[in-house]
């Protein structure tokens, strides 16, 4: 099967007509290259949508159907340019050629109408048209053939291996899931037919044995003993069958538990150490958090202290000084004034003699108190006149509204503050010391924490402290499971041994009392069916092993293509078949010892090698299928991804890879020895962060020649 083309019209970010968005593909490695967010993954979406009517939503990590995605399928630009009341559609056309030279064109269309309010109403489903090329014209195929044609292009059971995104690889070939590879083997083979072969022979053997026993019983001389023995045999055979099944189950359980336990084995020592350190870390973290709380409280209190502990006065020093000086001046002047006033004071009350009398004395130029003359211009007249001034002076009494007590109170407060100022200084400095002390303690504890984290095996990156505990718990749990299963297996073994002996004894007894006339074919049938069962089981084992061997060989060929360019990978892949007929992949060295500690890139390569081995099991599939992948190397180092592309080119007739590798000419030099098909470079008019609802967003493709 060769995918010859993919054409898009107004599909997601690919606004514009089919002609503008046509991708042609040929044999070899076809590449669609683009920066992250350029819209290249939408090509993968287009492939998927046209065949399966689903879109992968990476944020929700799931496929959603057209009925959910609806008009989001249509390019914003096309929707923007569409007039109200008009319709707009998204279309994808895939053209593929089979190995028998049949060419199919698969077209899927989704249409929506723009309403008066600017919103879009689309139907819940898309329209699928499949056409087959007949010499020069296209013949439309009836819908009942759609499924089988799509299955011809991409067989449904291989779909997940042929179409994947880089982020799916891990789950696609989950090596921890012991049945993952066995499922692949079932896909690759008629192994299920051999299961039914075993089923037939098992049932046949049981029936033949019963028929023989029944014949023995009916021909027996002692019919009641024979029927007792027969009944007992039926019961014991059932018990035996049940024990065997139980033992099989326990074996499987033991294997699963041991597998899970062994997977954890390398992590156990680390986990123990982590658990110990986790305790210390917890304590240190407790101390840090308590110190930090104190520290925060102290810092928070600083602003309160400005008021409650009057720290704000630290900045009022000059004002206080000024106030003190002014007050001293005021006090001095008050004092002087009072003093001058005291000097002038007359022994007489202020209103004696009365001013009217004084004025009379002045005009009469005589003192009416002592009778002496007081002519104008004499000192006597002047003294009498002063008595009038004394009254005016009395009116000027400076202490009538005395502010002095208030100011003096203020002054005392100021003095107190002046004293306190010295205390504030020491208060602040002691607070500051306490804060620095706390900070130093926190720093020290953080250092302790850091050194503990550095001691943590697995590094500081894995700060999940509970993981150590949980690994140990899991390890112990699986170990217990394995032990329990082991005990059960031994119990079953003992029971099976006893039951077999009992059945044999009863069988012999029954044969002993059997009379003549047991049909020979019944005896032969029982023996033959039993042998058939052995052979059927053996056949299944051999077929299974054969497929595993083929797969291992194929995967190793691919794996060595992949690793030819890097020296950092040693070892080969080995697929180990277990007693329970499952298959476990391992990396082994040349001596067959399991290599532990493979890095992520290495593991991804193994998984890809297995996926590619499944797809290129040529003797099995009538078609050579293309591998269509989106960012398959997203979790790989560069030297590993080169190996992947080399293996793709060498092993697949066609592959189509959407990638952000090879963005520049220099990078594309790495492709020069490979069998390359078409290469397209995708460019977007807007960066990924500004692409939401862009009416003018345009994605263009450019054909690149290497």
């Amino acid at each position, binding site marked *: 099967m060769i995918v010859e083309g993919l054409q898009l019209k107004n599909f997601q970010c690919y606004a514009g007509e089919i002609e503008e968005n046509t991708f042609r593909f040929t044999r070899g490695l076809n590449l669609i290259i683009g920066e992250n967010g350029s819209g290249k993954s939408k090509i993968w979406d287009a492939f998927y949508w046209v065949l399966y009517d689903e879109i992968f939503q990476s944020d929700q990590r799931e496929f959603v159907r057209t009925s959910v995605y609806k008009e989001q399928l249509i390019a914003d630009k096309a929707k923007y340019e569409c007039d109200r009341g008009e319709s707009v559609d998204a279309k994808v056309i895939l053209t593929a050629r089979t190995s028998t030279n049949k060419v199919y064109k698969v077209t899927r269309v989704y249409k929506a109408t723009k309403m008066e309010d600017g919103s879009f109403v689309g139907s819940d489903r898309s329209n699928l048209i499949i056409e087959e090329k007949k010499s020069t014209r296209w013949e439309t195929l009836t819908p009942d053939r759609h499924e089988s044609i799509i299955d011809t292009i991409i067989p449904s059971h291989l779909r997940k291996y042929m179409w994947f995104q880089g982020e799916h690889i891990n789950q696609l070939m989950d090596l921890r899931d012991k049945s993952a590879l066995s499922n692949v083997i079932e896909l690759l083979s008629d192994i*299920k*037919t051999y299961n039914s072969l075993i089923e037939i*022979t098992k049932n046949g053997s049981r029936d033949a044995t019963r028929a023989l026993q029944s014949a023995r019983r009916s021909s027996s001389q002692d019919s009641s003993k024979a029927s007792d023995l027969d009944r007992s045999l039926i019961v014991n055979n059932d018990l035996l069958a049940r024990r065997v099944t139980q033992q099989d189950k326990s074996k499987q359980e033991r294997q699963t538990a041991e597998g899970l336990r062994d997977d954890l084995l390398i992590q156990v020592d680390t986990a123990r150490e982590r658990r110990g350190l986790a305790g210390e870390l917890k304590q240190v973290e407790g101390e840090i958090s308590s110190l930090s709380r104190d520290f925060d409280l102290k810092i928070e209190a600083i602003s309160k202290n400005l008021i409650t502990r009057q720290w704000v006065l630290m900045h009022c020093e000059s004002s206080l000084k000024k106030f003190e000086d002014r007050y001293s001046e005021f006090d001095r002047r008050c004092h002087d004034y009072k003093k001058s006033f005291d000097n002038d004071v007359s022994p007489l009350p202020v209103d004696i003699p009365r001013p009217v009398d004084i004025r009379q004395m002045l005009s009469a130029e005589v003192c009416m108190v002592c009778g002496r003359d007081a002519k104008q211009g004499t000192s006597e007249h002047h003294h009498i006149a002063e008595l009038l001034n004394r009254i005016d002076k009395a009116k000027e009494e400076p202490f009538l509204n005395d502010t002095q007590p208030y100011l003096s109170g203020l002054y005392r407060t100021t003095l107190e503050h002046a004293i306190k100022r010295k205390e504030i200084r020491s208060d602040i400095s002691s607070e500051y010391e306490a804060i620095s002390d706390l900070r130093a303690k926190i720093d020290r504890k953080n250092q302790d924490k850091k050194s503990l984290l550095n001691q943590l095996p697995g590094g500081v990156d894995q700060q999940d402290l509970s993981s150590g505990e949980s690994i140990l718990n899991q390890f112990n749990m699986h170990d217990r499971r394995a032990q329990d299963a082991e005990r059960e297996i031994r119990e079953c073994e003992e029971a099976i041994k006893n039951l077999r002996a009992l059945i044999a004894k009863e069988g012999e007894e029954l044969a002993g009392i059997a009379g003549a006339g047991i049909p020979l074919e019944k005896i032969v*049938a029982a023996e033959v069916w039993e042998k058939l069962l052995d052979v059927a089981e053996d056949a299944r084992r051999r077929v299974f092993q054969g497929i595993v061997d083929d797969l291992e060989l194929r995967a190793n060929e691919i794996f060595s293509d992949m690793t030819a360019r890097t020296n950092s990978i040693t070892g080969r892949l080995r697929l180990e078949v277990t007693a329970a007929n499952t298959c476990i992949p391992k990396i082994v060295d040349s001596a067959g010892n399991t290599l532990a500690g493979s890095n992520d890139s290495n593991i991804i390569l193994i998984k890809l090698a297995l996926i590619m081995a499944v797809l290129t099991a040529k003797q099995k599939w009538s078609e050579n299928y293309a591998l269509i992948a989106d960012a398959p190397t997203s979790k790989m180092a560069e030297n590993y991804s080169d190996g992947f592309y080399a293996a793709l080119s060498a092993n697949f007739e066609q592959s189509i890879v959407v990638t952000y590798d090879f963005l520049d000419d220099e990078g594309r030099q790495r492709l020069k020895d490979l069998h390359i098909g078409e290469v397209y470079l995708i460019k977007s008019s807007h960066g990924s962060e500004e692409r939401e609802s862009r009416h003018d967003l345009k994605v263009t493709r450019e054909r690149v020649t290497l």
Partner: protein
Amino acid sequence: MISKKIDRKEVLAVLLDAEISRRELSSNNLSSDAIQFSSKDGPFFQALKGLAIAMSEGDGERAARKRVNQKIEDSVKGMSDDC
């Protein structure tokens, strides 16, 4: 249940191959009775053939067992005739 038509030759080949290699592994333990019993015309090989035909013709399980039993019976009759 047998649900898929597969090549009779393929089944037979694998079954016979399985039996032969199994016999090789335990050849020392085979009694002369057993060897005669499972000779090419003996009931065991006849039964294998019956199974292979049933598989290739897509018979159901009951039909397959019936066919095997028939083959065993036929070959047993043949053995008695020889006697």
